[in-house]
């Protein structure tokens, strides 16, 4: 049987922002490791975007050596405590696990988390970096892509400075993913590890505004990695979207996670919500928003134009949200947001949908049902229909080639149209997972290493 980590009681957890999953106990972890077949040709590793040697770390855990297990993971993954918590393992390592054929894949995520939570005391700082080579590299953006690139480059011996525009580092790990899925203490520990590798983190610097890319080169940086993320919130373009109490998911989550509005008035950033919230969209960001709103004491509906099957969010998150009392308002398309005379939301006008033939994305196309308009009784609306790449740098630096979809153009080595400037993660692919961005960060670190080696070679 697959061991499930204990979770905080539903009745309790909807009243707090503490982590939902309590993680494995020692016994659970051992039991789970004993189920692993330690395959000779492990498929799970192929499913991991950063190629963690999964059977080896599981074996080390089985031998009760969490520190060594963690060190093994950290050979490939700089943020295991994060990944163990937020990776969609069902689509990656666990999806490939041979036991998944019987629907009982090893709970690799929980084990990864266990290894990082229990192995961290001695593993932090014990990572030996290569001899420093005195070549300076600037990494822009401290989300998963930037952190990974920075850590890998530091391990290779480069002097890395990580620039972040917000006042705390971590990118989406800090402003986006809520405390109850990813405690900020864990993020701080991972950042501490990366600083321990010699990476210098500079917050409050917006590249493109505080410094241009040219200025970075003038300051002696030999290469730049752009891990800018997909930060531009999308709106529906329906009437009423600028009413008060209509938020983009980004704004809602940033206020709550980064600015800690859930601790208002201890923290001074407010969030103004009513009693009944509609969250439009059905991805992880929508569910994160919905579950935050629930914890602030609201009645919450997810409004989605297709059905549960087509939802892009992780199944685990959908289940958690439903258990907690989030209502799914399916086959529903918002038409306009209704406001009162003071400019606040008083309702969401919608129409009913049915599913038709599959569209280009392979998902069934939602079609409107005639005369099915109705008004959802809500006083707050959160728009969570996706984010596109952050356009700020592309606008500030005309030499950066930007694709029509807003992503930054890169070649097969992740180099942008400016020599020595690399990019990866959501800014290149559009919104994707934490681990995919980390994979890109790794690839970019290697590419930068190669690029600089070639430069040194041709110079001598």
């Amino acid at each position, binding site marked *: 049987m697959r061991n499930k980590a204990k979770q905080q009681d539903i009745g309790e957890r909807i009243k707090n922002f503490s982590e939902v999953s309590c993680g494995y106990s020692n016994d659970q972890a051992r039991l789970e490791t004993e189920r692993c077949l330690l395959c000779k040709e492990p498929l799970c590793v192929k499913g991991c975007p950063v190629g963690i040697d999964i059977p080896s770390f599981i074996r080390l855990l089985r031998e009760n050596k969490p520190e060594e297990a963690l060190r093994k993971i950290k050979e490939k993954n700089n943020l295991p405590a994060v990944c163990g918590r937020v990776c969609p393992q069902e689509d990656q390592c666990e999806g490939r696990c041979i036991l998944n054929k019987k629907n009982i894949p090893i709970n690799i995520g929980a084990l990864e988390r266990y290894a990082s939570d229990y192995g961290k005391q001695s593993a932090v700082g014990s990572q030996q970096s290569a001899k420093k080579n005195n070549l300076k590299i600037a990494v822009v953006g401290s989300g998963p892509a930037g952190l990974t690139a920075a850590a890998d480059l530091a391990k290779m011996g480069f002097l890395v400075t990580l620039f972040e*525009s*917000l*006042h705390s580092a971590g990118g989406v790990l800090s*402003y986006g993913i809520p405390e109850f899925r990813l405690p900020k203490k864990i993020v701080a520990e991972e950042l501490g590890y990366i600083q321990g590798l010699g990476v210098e983190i500079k*917050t*409050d*610097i*917006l590249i493109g*505004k*505080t*410094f241009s890319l040219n200025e970075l080169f003038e300051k002696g940086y030999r290469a730049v990695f752009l891990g800018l993320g997909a*930060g*531009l*919130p999308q*709106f529906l373009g329906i009437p009423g*979207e*600028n*009413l*008060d*109490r209509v*938020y*983009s998911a*980004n*704004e809602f989550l*940033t*206020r709550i996670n980064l*600015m*800690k509005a859930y601790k*208002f*008035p*201890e*923290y*001074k*950033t*407010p*969030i*103004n919500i009513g009693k009944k919230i509609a969250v439009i969209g059905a991805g992880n960001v929508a569910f994160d928003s919905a579950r935050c709103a629930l914890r602030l004491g609201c009645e919450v509906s997810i409004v989605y134009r297709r059905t549960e099957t087509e939802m892009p969010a992780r199944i685990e998150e959908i289940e958690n949200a439903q258990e907690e009392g989030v209502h799914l308002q399916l086959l529903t398309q918002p038409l306009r947001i209704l406001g009162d005379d*003071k*400019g606040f939301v008083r309702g969401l006008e919608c129409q009913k949908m049915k599913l038709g033939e599959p569209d280009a994305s392979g998902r069934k196309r939602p079609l409107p049902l005639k005369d099915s308009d109705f008004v959802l009784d809500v006083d707050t609306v959160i728009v969570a229909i996706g984010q596109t790449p*952050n*356009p*700020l740098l592309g*606008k500030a630096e005309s030499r950066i080639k930007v694709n029509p979809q807003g992503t930054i153009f890169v070649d097969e080595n992740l180099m942008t149209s400016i020599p020595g400037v690399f990019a990866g993660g959501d800014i290149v692919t559009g919104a994707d997972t934490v681990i995919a961005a980390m994979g890109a960060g790794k690839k970019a670190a290697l590419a930068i290493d190669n690029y600089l080696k070639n430069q040194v070679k041709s110079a001598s």
Partner: protein
Amino acid sequence: MFKIIEKTNLAPQIKKIVVEAGEIARKARPGQFVVIVSKESSERIPLTIADLNPQEGTITLIFQEIGFSTRELGLLGPGDSIQHILGPLGQPTDIENFGTVICVGGGVGIAEIYPVVKAMKKAGNRVLGIIGARKESLIILKEELRELCDEFFITTDDGSLGKKGLVTDILQDLFTSVEKSTHTLYPNRVYAVGPVVMMQAVSNLTKMYNIKTIVSLNPIMVDATGMCGSCRVSVGGKVVFGCVDGPEFDGHQVDFEELKKRLNSFKEKEDSL
């Protein structure tokens, strides 16, 4: 950490601080702003850069204590530090030799027209300044501006200084008298910063005379890097982000009614602090 090296009370509840922020001082241009976080628990609030000294590496911020966050900032004095300052943000003011430019400042907005007046003058414009406030004690920077402007007017609601009335009264007088005399002195551009109602009134007036008018908006912001949309405003029927597309927009295109409503989004909460 950004150290405050000087602090002056300009008027009741209007304070001026000079802060060490070398990188920003070297980079900033008129019309740009910074976001500050006074303490770890504070809000991120945008403040226009009122002046800067690239040699000394300092920027000057002038703010009115209108809510909790500005009051909290007002408690800091020389030697204290502001935890975080990000900038320079937003698009700089479009500065060139337009001919005649009228700069209108209301309340603490007077501080925001100061760097623009300076730059417009330097670019060779004939600059007319009009500033206004409720009463004499709230008028700031009058000597500095008088010095820079070719013609300079003050209004107060209660008549305690300058002409009794609103900045738009002067503006109206100017348009009328100029029209009567010579068109060579007709303003080519109006630049207005102040309370939303003032910017709206100025824009309504200049629209009748078809004079291009730039206003600097102050929507509610969080990140101020284009990530959240808290600062969205409607300009010419399109939704734009005040922090990255602005803060300056064509006053004839701005939906001021919507902006007023959006500025009330958090009022109740903020008043509770």
